[in-house]
């Protein structure tokens, strides 16, 4: 039996679970960001898998492109915020950050 839609969906759900686990358990803000990238990648695999097998054709590709655009914008802004937090707190542990200004 060949590789079908289900194989890609299972792969993406494993990636999604790992990403969610990383987002919840890690304290470092950059690790949370990496978990987020894993989740976005798994969503993209779903889009492209449905584009090939589910008849979404080229529209799935366009949706995936917009996801990549949003991921790039989000990474830039999040990194800027993390750098700013580091200047104030000297660490980036998300569970100890409770003030928005000193």
């Amino acid at each position, binding site marked *: 039996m060949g*590789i079908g839609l*289900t*194989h*890609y*969906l299972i*792969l993406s*759900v*494993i*990636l*999604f*679970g*790992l*990403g*969610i686990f*990383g987002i*919840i*358990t*890690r*304290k*470092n803000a*950059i*690790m949370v*960001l*990496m*978990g987020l*990238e*894993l989740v976005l*990648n798994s969503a*993209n*695999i779903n889009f*492209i*898998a449905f*584009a*090939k*097998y*589910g*008849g979404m054709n*080229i*529209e799935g*590709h*366009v949706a*995936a*492109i*917009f996801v*990549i655009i*949003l*991921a*790039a*914008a989000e*990474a*830039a*802004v999040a*990194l*800027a915020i*993390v*750098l*700013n937090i580091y*200047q104030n707190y000297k*660490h980036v542990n998300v*569970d100890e950050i409770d003030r928005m200004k000193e």
Partner: protein
Amino acid sequence: MDLITIIFYFFAVLIVASAMVVVFSKNIMYSAFSLLFTFFGVAAIYVLLNADFLALTQIMIYIGGILVLIIFGVMLTTRITGVDIKSGLIGKMQLGITGIAVAILTITLGVMYSNVKWFIRDAEPLKDTISPIGRMLLTDYLLAFEAASVLLLIAIIGAAMIARRKKNIN
């Protein structure tokens, strides 16, 4: 076992293994570099799914852009000695509960995915994807395309504003 099957399983194992290193590694630098292999594997999966333009975009934007940003962030903010995962009994309990919840979520979604009878239409064979994507971006998705470009501009300006070192104004 044909060639496509072997290639798929190779890259699937690569993706899952490197994603596990990303999530479970104690050293954040290992996580950042392991993310590289995950992104490459996902790009290979895109190639298997006939999405050549998406695979190139993945390599250029994720690896050339986002991963470099993340590695810069790691180098600029992390002290190597910092303990990342919560320690102690409460931390272990939180880890366990989260692990169980995520495992349940993953298994439920996986069972759902494998049992659903998808209504699958035969995909039209694509020669290339670049020109249909371009045509679609400038016709059906023109508004979303322009909104995305404005969003990127705002994100650049906002990131530069936030990350700028503040002068003391007294």
